[in-house]
């Protein structure tokens, strides 16, 4: 039997397949809590969770916060603006101060890849990675995989295509690690400037045209172009990107009838994904959001079981 022994969730890269499955199985039971009339359980009663979002976030922070409330935790939210970071305090000093307030778990988003590994090694309290730069976003990948399993029964042997700005995407990296560990066939597609070839080494198929990514896919996950992380121009124009890599009524003809369409949000409608498809019957985008709550409850629960 798999037993959870980690005080932190930093990256799916660290987890083995059984640990990932344990989180997903646990999430299935927490999903039911949100479907009850009384949507709260006393799992984190008396525990304090600090949401420390150095990089802005709406959906992830809201999802974590609601997950914590459903688990009966006491919650403190700290944003980078207005925190002592803006007064020149180091990250480690800030989180040590948070821990000194008897915080049990710190949920952090930070723009620097590896920031969580650094603070986790210095703290006794649990650390959950809510996104670090372009590196990792484990709870997003977990909710993606949870949603795929809910729709398709399993991820093993499924063809999953991730399309868009792979280079700057922590979602893509986390999805790839999780999906490969659970036996999916992963294809990535996008402009070649945004398509790191190193993923081929772990068995990911890298293609530079949309048709090749769509034709056998059981799942397509579309990513937003992350202009905020792009220091230089990687392709000529947004219009050109939409024409070549956008999923719309025209390009959707390459898709299998039962393929599902995913997007981690926020969507740039009409760029990577047309509105008619984002709101269409094959879209599972809002179910991803619902499942994110369950997955985050499961992660917080498992971490809280480790002293």
């Amino acid at each position, binding site marked *: 039997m798999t037993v959870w022994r980690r005080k932190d969730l930093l990256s799916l890269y660290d987890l083995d397949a059984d640990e990932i499955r344990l989180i997903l199985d*646990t999430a299935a039971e927490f999903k039911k809590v949100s479907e009850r009339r009384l949507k709260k*359980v006393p799992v984190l009663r008396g525990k304090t969770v600090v949401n420390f979002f150095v990089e802005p976030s709406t959906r992830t922070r809201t999802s974590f916060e609601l997950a914590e409330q459903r688990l009966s935790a006491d919650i403190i939210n700290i944003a980078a603006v207005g925190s002592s970071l803006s007064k020149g305090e180091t990250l480690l000093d800030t989180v040590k101060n948070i821990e000194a307030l008897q915080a049990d778990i710190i949920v952090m988003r930070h723009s620097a890849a590896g920031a969580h590994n650094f603070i986790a090694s210095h703290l006794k309290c649990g650390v959950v990675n809510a996104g670090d730069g372009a590196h990792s976003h484990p709870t997003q990948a977990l909710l993606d995989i949870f949603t795929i399993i809910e729709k398709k029964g399993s991820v093993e042997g499924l063809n999953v295509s991730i399309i868009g700005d792979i280079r700057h995407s922590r979602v893509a990296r986390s999805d790839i690690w999780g999906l490969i560990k659970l036996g999916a066939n992963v294809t990535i597609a996008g402009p070649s400037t945004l398509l790191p070839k190193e993923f081929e080494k772990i068995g990911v198929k890298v293609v530079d045209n949309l048709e090749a990514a769509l034709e056998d896919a059981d799942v397509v996950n579309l990513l937003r172009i992350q202009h905020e992380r792009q220091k230089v121009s990687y392709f000529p124009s947004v219009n050109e990107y939409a024409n070549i890599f956008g999923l719309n009524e025209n390009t959707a003809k390459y898709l299998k009838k039962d393929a599902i369409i995913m997007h981690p949000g926020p969507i740039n409608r009409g760029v990577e994904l047309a509105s008619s498809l984002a709101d269409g019957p094959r879209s599972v985008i809002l179910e991803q959001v619902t499942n994110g709550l369950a997955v985050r409850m499961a992660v917080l629960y498992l971490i809280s079981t*480790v002293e």
Partner: protein
Amino acid sequence: MTSQGTLLFDSGAVGTMLSQMADAIVADFPSGDIGNAVLIGIQTNGVPLARWLAREIESRRGGAEPSVGTLDISMYRDDIGKRLVLGRIHETDISFDIDDVPVILIDDVLRTGRTIRAALDAITDYGRPSMIKLAVLIDRGGHEFPIRADYIGSSVDVEGGGFVSVEWSGSGEDATVVLATS
């Protein structure tokens, strides 16, 4: 664990206990009411017991089986974060309304009463039953909470740190009770 344990009750004896428990439940919930009362088995060993009891109750009444639900109490434990190893969360499946109906909660072994305390909290988060009764196959003493069972297969007095467990055959149709001395 089975191989090192002492057999306390063979499957025949367990069958007799369940039969007597079913008699007592049917006697307490006379005609009309039992169709209303629901059985909820505590994960994991209370679940096959609940199903077994439901069949026994049905055979006595010649009607439909009472509804059977399953309840996992992991989210209501009083030792989250205090134990190194917590078990996997199993399925909670209460797909019927428990408001204003009698609930019979079923577990295999009653020891400290802490599991039942957690189960009472969990159940009342699902609704407001008209009453909750507790049925256990084995009451082994050593209660730490003021909790007693209403239906007991057998009370076993265990010296020291012995561990009483109910061992199921693969089919879930056949159980024995074993005392392991650890």
